């Protein structure tokens, strides 16, 4: 028989290679292997996977991650309700819907737990829930995704538990970082703009304060809308702005001075630093705007101090040198007078020896007015000595007694002095000036030498009175002086430790945030032009006609305040309208 039919016969009678009665076992084994593989996959999954009975939510199966999350071995986890694994779910029912056929509530026991809940099923029939799961490590955040399945006609619910602690932590860190940078942004003492496409897109609180505008106003404006058309130093605002923005966008950080406008139109000087950064792929600019008005003021104070110290030194040196010859002149004039006086035995004896009659010599003197000349010499010497003494004071620390003083009391006393001052009465009666007092109640005391500060305040009142006397007031305006007493926190723009104004090496302020008592004397006289204002405290600088005062009053005041008291004295003016002197003296700290 041919081979082929041999094979066929073998097969037909059941003796072929593959002739074994049908068995599902190999196929089943393959499927079991697939299941085992799938099981291994599930076991290795980082997510917890649980299979639940749909009606009771009893755990039928769970993978390793689920057991880990639940903190229970598989044997303890299975056969118990889901809430045994996740205690937060106690009493909770998922709002799950089955397939389309289950959308309508059914009769009978197969309707399942999800129908009992007041559930609105999601489109996918899936419900998600975030729970806090206690664990040894202090707790996990788990996101549960429950979904209904019908397998072999039985309803099941699958529950995937994902550990989202890390994700939540990262999100929280991001929020925290955002809060941190927002705080930095908002707490900055400089105004900050975030600029894109030439417009302000965000601004911090300080920017709103500085520009006097609410945020929503700022965020629709270009920097040039907040500036005068011309920049005092650099010219056309629009052109300069364009150039600066372009350069900064080109990656070249810009730092420059600028004049901005407040909402009320008042200009202020600032320094701007402009640099580029990238946000979501878009180029942005960050503008840090520092108001340098106070800084300028401070710089002025420093320059002033420097100048005053050197001038004061020179003046004191000169005074010291002049003092000796002046004493000699004074003494000589005095001796001259005494040696001419009759009735003095030495004079009588000398006259007798010289053979002259002392009476006649006296007579000659009178005829020639010599006695008057000597008196003039003595009077001139006295005046010079007075100046010299002031000049010496510039370089000498006072040893006047100090106490804690209420400056409003000292100010009132100075006003009283001024009202009764002969000199002042003579020329311009102080009592014709309207005094307006703006004293802030509760102002702390300042430690000072009351006599010295009284003198300073008197000088300022005198200065005001003299200024007023030089102004021709229009009909409706009356001479007036405003006196203010209040407190001030720190010296504007003065950095910590920079308040040393006397060169003594001791800090003028115990700290940058030291409180000062502020006393202002503001007149509505002719005011000072800038040239005059910056020199106002220089010795011998005066705008008064010669002979009308020594020009030392303000200098003396300056040294008393700054050197003797560690305070500040500042003059500001709007020419033609007003002039204001401000004295700042360190306040006595409450409770200190």
């Amino acid at each position: 028989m041919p081979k082929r039919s041999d094979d066929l016969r073998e097969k037909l009678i059941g003796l072929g290679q593959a002739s074994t009665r049908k068995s599902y076992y190999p196929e089943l084994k393959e499927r079991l292997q697939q299941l085992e593989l799938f099981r291994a996959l599930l076991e290795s999954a980082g997510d917890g996977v649980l299979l639940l009975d749909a009606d009771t939510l009893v755990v039928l199966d769970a993978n390793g991650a689920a057991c880990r999350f639940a903190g229970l071995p598989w044997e303890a986890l299975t056969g118990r309700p889901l809430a045994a694994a996740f205690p937060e779910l106690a009493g909770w029912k998922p709002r799950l819907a089955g397939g389309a056929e289950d959308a309508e509530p059914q009769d009978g026991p197969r309707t399942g737990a999800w129908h009992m809940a007041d559930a609105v099923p999601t489109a996918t029939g899936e419900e998600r829930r975030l729970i806090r799961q206690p664990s040894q490590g202090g707790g996990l955040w788990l996101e549960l995704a429950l979904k209904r399945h019908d397998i072999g006609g039985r309803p099941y619910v699958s529950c995937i538990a994902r550990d989202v602690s890390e994700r939540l932590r990262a999100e929280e860190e991001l929020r925290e970082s955002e809060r941190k940078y927002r705080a930095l942004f908002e707490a900055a003492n400089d105004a900050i703009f975030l600029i894109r496409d030439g417009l302000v897109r965000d601004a911090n609180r300080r920017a709103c304060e500085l520009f006097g505008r609410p945020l929503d106003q700022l965020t629709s404006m270009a920097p040039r809308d907040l500036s005068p058309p011309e920049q005092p130093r650099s010219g056309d605002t629009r052109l300069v702005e364009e150039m600066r923005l372009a350069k900064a966008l080109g990656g070249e950080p810009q730092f420059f001075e600028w004049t901005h406008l407040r909402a009320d139109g008042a200009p202020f000087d600032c320094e701007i630093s402009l640099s580029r950064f990238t946000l979501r792929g878009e180029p942005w600019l960050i503008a840090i705007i520092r108001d340098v008005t106070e800084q300028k003021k401070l710089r002025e104070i420093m320059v002033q101090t420097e100048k005053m110290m050197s001038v004061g030194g020179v003046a004191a040196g000169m005074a010291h040198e002049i003092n000796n010859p002046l004493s000699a002149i004074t003494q000589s004039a005095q001796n001259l007078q005494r040696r001419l006086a009759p009735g003095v035995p030495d004079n009588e004896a000398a006259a007798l020896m010289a053979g002259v009659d002392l009476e006649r010599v006296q007579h000659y003197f009178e005829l020639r007015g010599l006695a008057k000349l000597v008196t003039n010499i003595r009077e001139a010497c006295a005046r010079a000595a007075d100046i010299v003494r002031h000049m010496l004071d510039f370089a000498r620390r006072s040893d006047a007694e100090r106490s804690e003083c209420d400056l409003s009391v000292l100010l009132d006393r100075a006003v009283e002095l001024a009202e009764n001052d002969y000199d002042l009465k003579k020329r311009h009666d102080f009592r014709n000036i309207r005094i307006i007092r703006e004293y802030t109640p509760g102002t702390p005391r300042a430690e000072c030498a009351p006599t010295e500060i009284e003198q300073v305040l008197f000088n300022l009142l005198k200065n005001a009175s003299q200024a007023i006397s030089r102004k021709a007031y229009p009909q409706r305006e009356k001479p007036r002086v405003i006196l203010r007493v209040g407190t001030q926190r720190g010296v504007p723009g003065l950095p910590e430790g920079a308040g040393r104004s006397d060169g003594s090496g001791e800090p003028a302020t115990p700290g940058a945030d030291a409180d000062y008592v502020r006393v202002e004397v503001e007149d509505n006289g002719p005011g000072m032009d800038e040239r005059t204002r910056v020199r106002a405290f220089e010795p011998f600088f005066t705008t008064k006609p010669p002979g009308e005062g020594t020009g030392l009053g303000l200098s003396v005041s300056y040294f008393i305040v700054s050197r003797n008291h560690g305070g500040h004295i500042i003059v500001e003016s709007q020419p033609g309208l007003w002039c204001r002197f401000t004295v700042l003296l360190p306040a006595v700290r409450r409770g200190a």
Partner: protein
Amino acid sequence: MSDYELRKFVAPEFVFGYGAAGLAGRHARNLGASRCLVVSDQGVAAAGHTEAVVRTLRDEGIACATFLGVSENPRDTEVMQGSEVFRAEGCDAIVAVGGGSPMDCAKGIGIVVANGGHVLDYEGVDAIPKPMPPLVCVPTTAGSSADVSQFAIIRDTPRRVKIAIVSKANVPDVALVDPLTTLTKARNLTAATGLDALTHAVEAYASNAHSPVTDMFALEAIRGIGTALFDVLDDLRDRDARARMALGSMNAGLAFSNAILGAVHALSHSLGGLLDLPHGECNALLLPFVVRRNFTAAPRRYRRVAEALGVDGALGAGGTLAAPDDEVRDALFARLGDMRRRAGFDKGLAQYGVTRGQLAELARLALDDPCLSTNPAPLDARELEELYAEAL
């Protein structure tokens, strides 16, 4: 009782013939095995059959673990040990090589690995919930017919009884009946297993659960064994005689697996369980007494048995009765006794160490045996005890 009542016939896929054992690997592979537990015993392994089967398995790329810890009446403890080996070795199929003992033990192992628990939990009929892994049987004894039957007989060691686990789930997937494997069998074992097979055929034929199909196998088995057994005993190397014996045994197995047995096996199981006596020899001893006792309950059946064993006048021409019942009964009783003695067994129960005092206990245990329910005559404990007494 009608011949056309509902009947089921369960048999494994089987290959009969010279060299059938060599097909073990192929069939195991076709059944999806990748790692087999080969269950056998020391005697079979010593004869080289175990190794031969293992080789066919390895040739098919199937890994093997061998379990040889089976004794003559397989014990529950051995089953449990075997199932441990199965699990530990990660096996997915069982190949039994040997006589009734390794095959029954293999069935027990299969039951335990599929269902868990203890093998004794599954005692009784149809008490196995889950089918076992693929089971291939390579019988080497031509006697027990466990390779085709739904029976597994396990010795309950603490209770000292043999329990029967009867279930369609016990039928192997494939039986590879190779007469050549029986060539090495010793004379005594050949005789004992041969008489066991004869008992199977006689009990199945007389069973109250017989059917036309089982009758066919039973009668053919009685006829075949009746001549083949003594041909084999005359020349143990006679291949064809061995083959006829193997075929007879298989036919008997197919018959009794479906028609079930009777009082002989009930009594014999009791002896095996309580006293660990050899199954075949006990059957051979008890068969004549039980037949004599049962005869009147099914005389036409026993006449046919007698006829198949060559008893003259058992059946007349055209079905007429040639001789009276009691004559035929006595002739059959004598013939069965002769066959036993010719096969080399002449001891009574007493000579096996059974005492009269044990008979009541043996009878009580036999009464519980499932095989008793298909005995053509209903027997009570007293009658069973009498049968033991007759065989004493």
